[in-house]
């Protein structure tokens, strides 16, 4: 089926099988491998990206469902070589260890602050319930997000 999806500002016209998952589409068809596949069962959140501005788990969305939509992946956050403030906050606060969950964490975190720009620590922790860090490094991830919120994005 023919679809048209705007990914990181660039519109792609593609012909996909209806069963193609959105994560498979961005990774394999578009080569954007920053979005990771972790559990593949919509539990871990490693595949989180933005669909029309909101974080979703791209292992549980069909590419055909994204037809006509705007998608942002981790690769689309930096502008002119300058990192997104959330990426910067993760770097400054050591918000990553092995890095596997990081793209999903950053995408979920930006979506969280879009909905709640000044969250409490509890609200950040609850807001991250859909993202698992296999290093269990949540403390600095939460600190990164709080720092980003305080920095006014």
């Amino acid at each position, binding site marked *: 089926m023919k679809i048209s999806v705007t990914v990181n500002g660039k519109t792609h016209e593609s012909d996909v099988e209806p069963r193609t998952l959105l994560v498979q589409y961005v990774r394999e068809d578009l080569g954007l491998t920053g979005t990771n596949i972790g559990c593949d069962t919509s539990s871990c959140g490693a595949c989180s990206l933005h669909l029309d501005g909101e974080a979703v788990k791209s292992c549980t969305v069909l590419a*055909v469902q994204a037809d006509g939509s705007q998608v942002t992946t981790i690769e689309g956050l930096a502008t002119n070589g300058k990192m997104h403030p959330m990426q910067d906050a993760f770097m400054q606060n050591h918000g990553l260890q092995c890095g596997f969950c990081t793209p999903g964490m950053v995408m979920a975190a930006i979506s969280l602050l879009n*909905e709640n720009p000044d969250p409490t620590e509890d609200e950040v922790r609850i807001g991250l*319930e859909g993202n698992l860090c296999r290093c269990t490094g949540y403390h600095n991830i939460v600190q990164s997000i709080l720092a980003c919120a305080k920095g006014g994005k």
Partner: protein
Amino acid sequence: MIPSLFDYKRASSAAEAISLVTEYGEDAKFLAGGHSLLPLMKLRLAAPSVLVDIGRLKDLSYITDAGSYIAIGALTRHMDVETSPIVKQHVPLLACAAGHVGDPQVRHRGTIGGSIAHADSASDLPATTLALGATYVVQGASGTREIAATDFYKGFLESALQPDEMLTEIRVPKMNGAGWSFQKFNRRAQDWAIVGVAAWRGNGGSGVALVNMGSTPVLATDVATALASGASVADAAELAAAQADPQSDLNASAEYRVHLAKVLVRRALEEASK
């Protein structure tokens, strides 16, 4: 994991969606947010040959005050139910339960109608709407009918929906200030409840329903009857599992679930009675 092959049809109206599933019969499934169906298809536990995508029927995404009840379009997402001022004001128990479904990413995609039509007893919204005495409006090739939540759940993932029928609206009676509580016991925040309880009490009545305590969501009418005849919360809660038939699984034995149901119903009623 990739689903097995299927044909994809995108409906532009409810009538077209119903006509498509009528044409393809029992091999066709509606696709709303996909957060119940796609995981099953990826595990090949479901393999419909045709998916009829109703996810773009924006006219079925709404929340309106209809006087004695709140009308919610079947394609309203969990996030929209959770954050709706109308739902929070008139059916706060439902807003709370919607906020417990999955995680934010899931709530950005999953819909109230999809969750109810999937009829999973482990999901939060079937039991919650059952406790609240909701009515479901369904549209089929032969017209529209209303099904009381009490008549809807027929078995494991089975509902009173006919293959050519689509759930279009959920009508939830206003709570009129009644006390309420939603209890969800699980290991990780995003998981399904090992046992969950949706309860309200006030205005001379009460309603208690159980999540994941059998093949269907369970309306614990014995508890409500006991409360109505003057039983204490503690005594009524002892009847929590009287009408349930829980299964043992990886997370909990049936006996443990019975224990949890009693404890959680007591906690829920204590909170709802404040």
